[in-house]
């Protein structure tokens, strides 16, 4: 006797607690098993690229805040690098260090959020998330000190950073680094080797390296598949050429490895922050640039950084006006979703949520 079964199509999202925003997946299940996946985007599409064509170069910085809104600092940095490339601007040394430092702090904050929600998706009742937020809040406090905002920072500007750090920033940063160690250790103890986390994530949703590369996957997701490609190492920008750090690589390409790579990257980021504090020297923080920039007509630039989610690129084309003629944003979150079908089909509903968490997408960036 055979039981008659029917596939069942379910919309996961756009209103679902674990799709990290307004992502929607139309999933067909056979029981709990996924047999078909169709990602549907655009619920947060704000036309950033079109808006950028009507803003001047400095105003666009505020738009970049809203791409990956948990790592605005890195978005600002990526955009400013592109503009500087476009204009041929030389950035003062101190500004480079400040950017590097803040970008790494932001990477820690972003990864903490990624890890926290990954574990939330695994079904913890928010405990690791709260521990992660405990540290993240302190980073945001530092950012508030630096530039008056916590999320939408607009700290980097073409030609440097908008202002030097206040005097009381440095002791506060030291205090944060001192506290962070034990706080993060607690989080690691809670989850890093937890058996339930292991059985839930090891060997689940495998991403082989060739599929990852072919699918334009970058960032921690790529590194978890076994390739230590990090733009900070490969094409150092700002002060990264003077930083000593390792690139965590895992070879499994499963959910656990993606999680593990993020945890290790936090350690490396803290290492970079410490080096920045040691190496930074007094000096100007912004090149002598006017508020309104006018690059050469026909100039174009592709500025890329290793953002917390992967390769974030800004392709700018100028027509000589005060705003870019075209501003294309290469968002890592969208590109990492290319492999979503490969990752999900054949796994179960519960794995799907965890896999989405392990990709650490940000819908502000996916939809732009």
């Amino acid at each position, binding site marked *: 006797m055979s039981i008659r079964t029917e596939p069942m199509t379910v919309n996961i999202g756009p209103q679902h607690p674990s799709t990290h925003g307004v992502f929607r997946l139309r999933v067909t299940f056979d029981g709990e098993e996924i047999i078909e996946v169709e990602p549907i985007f655009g619920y947060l599409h704000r036309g950033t690229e079109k808006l950028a064509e009507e803003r001047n170069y400095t105003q666009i910085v505020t738009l970049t805040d809203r791409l990956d809104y948990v790592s605005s600092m890195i978005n600002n940095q990526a955009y400013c690098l592109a503009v500087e490339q476009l204009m041929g601007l030389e950035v003062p040394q101190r500004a480079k260090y400040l950017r590097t430092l803040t970008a790494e702090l932001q990477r820690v904050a972003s990864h903490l959020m990624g890890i926290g929600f990954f574990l939330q998706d695994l079904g913890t009742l928010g405990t690791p998330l709260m521990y992660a937020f405990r540290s993240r809040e302190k980073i945001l406090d530092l950012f508030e000190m630096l530039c008056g905002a916590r999320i939408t920072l607009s700290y980097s500007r073409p030609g440097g950073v908008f202002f030097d750090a206040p005097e009381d920033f440095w002791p506060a940063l030291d205090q944060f680094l001192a506290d962070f160690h034990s706080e993060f250790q607690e989080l690691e103890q809670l*989850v890093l080797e937890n058996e339930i986390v292991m*059985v839930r994530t090891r060997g689940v949703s495998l991403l082989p390296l060739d599929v990852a590369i072919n699918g334009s996957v970058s960032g921690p997701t790529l590194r978890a598949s076994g390739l230590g490609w990090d733009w900070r190492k490969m094409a150092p920008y700002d002060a990264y050429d003077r930083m000593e750090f390792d690139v*965590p690589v895992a070879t499994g390409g499963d959910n656990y490895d993606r999680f593990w790579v993020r945890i290790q990257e936090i350690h490396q980021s803290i290492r970079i922050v410490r080096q920045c504090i040691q190496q930074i020297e007094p000096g100007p923080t912004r090149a002598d640039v006017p508020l309104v920039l006018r690059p050469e007509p026909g100039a174009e630039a592709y500025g890329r950084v290793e953002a917390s989610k992967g390769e974030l690129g800004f392709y700018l084309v100028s027509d000589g006006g005060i705003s870019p003629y075209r501003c294309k944003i290469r968002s890592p979150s969208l590109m990492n979703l290319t492999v979503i079908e490969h990752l999900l089909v054949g796994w*179960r509903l519960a794995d799907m949520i965890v896999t989405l968490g392990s990709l650490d997408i940000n819908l502000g960036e996916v939809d732009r």
Partner: protein
Amino acid sequence: MDCVLAPDNILHDTLLFRVIYEWVGQLLPCGLSYAVAGIAIMLLLVNGVLLGAGGFSWLERRLIGRFQNRVGPNRWGPFGALQPMADLFKLLFKEDLVPRGADRIVFTIVPVAMMAPVVLMMAVVPFAKDTALANLNVGVLYVLAVTSITSIAIFMAGWASDNRYALFGASRGVAVLISYEVPVVMSLLGVVLVAGSMALDDIVSAQTVPFLLVQPMAFFVFLAGTSAELNRTPFDLAEAESEIIAGYHIEYSGVKFALIQATEFGAVLTSSAVMVTLFLSGWSGPFSDYLGWAWFLLKIGVLAFIFSWVRATFPRLRIDQLLAFAWKFLLPLSIINLFATALEVYFLRNDAGMLTTNDLWLMAGINFGVAFACLLTFGTLIQDKVRPAKSLTAASLSSPEVG
């Protein structure tokens, strides 16, 4: 009209019932008085469970708050203790929505069907000396039978809601409940063997040594099984917040949702009560003739704390892992426990078929040994699946070689 309860009446041992029955019996005919006393007791029980559920919901939220290094509800009342009231009133005044495609009748019955077993379970649990509502001689069986109603209620909810998430939740819930019923029953057999009775009162009095020590494996299996049946982390698949949002009760709102929530929190308390009775020697303790209820509540509190603690700490298992856990780990454990206990009882009991306190201590020692051996064996067997994280080797962290 002096009504006197016959000694063979099932409710004869229930002091409170008898007092009410005899007092009301002075005014009303005996039959009516019986009914009045019954309803009074029932109201007491239902409201007691609901109140307990409210209290526990506050306690758990406070506890989890502190586990997560935050405060938890603290706005209304001292330490936020009136928060459950606020929640209740909010939910009472909310619109009671029924989805268009839902099966209205079944949909409406569900909250009641879920509430019923929780309340019914309390009927046989002795709160203190001579305070069980009904001292059934098949108390354990009754508890097990009554809890099985939950699975039907869950499936009704999932089916009637006309929602695919609810269906997921329901099918998961039923699978879990059916699977965990087996090891739970098997683990209780050990307890029954040692106590030599199925009446909860007798089990309490048999615990000169708490059965937690005599039957550690049974306790573990029962604890895990109960967690699963209560849908609590790490076994909260049926309502997995991050996956299927609320599972079978996704479509419930207003009063119905309040009832389902109350059931969930109440069920933790009643299950704890059963566990206290079976494994933690119930209401007995120093001065238990007068302070039995205090001991009882204290022990429930300890168990509830453990439930909250576990809930605050662990992630959730996947459905196949959860079922594998039941069939491949808990069931063998409970069978081993049953056989070990049976052999021990067979060899240790005296001519009257009774076990002395010394026998119980001996059994505790043996069973702990068995438990440790089992843990070691099973731990080795599943080591592959949960091997620890890669250590931070130079190879995985060195500057990358791209090839």
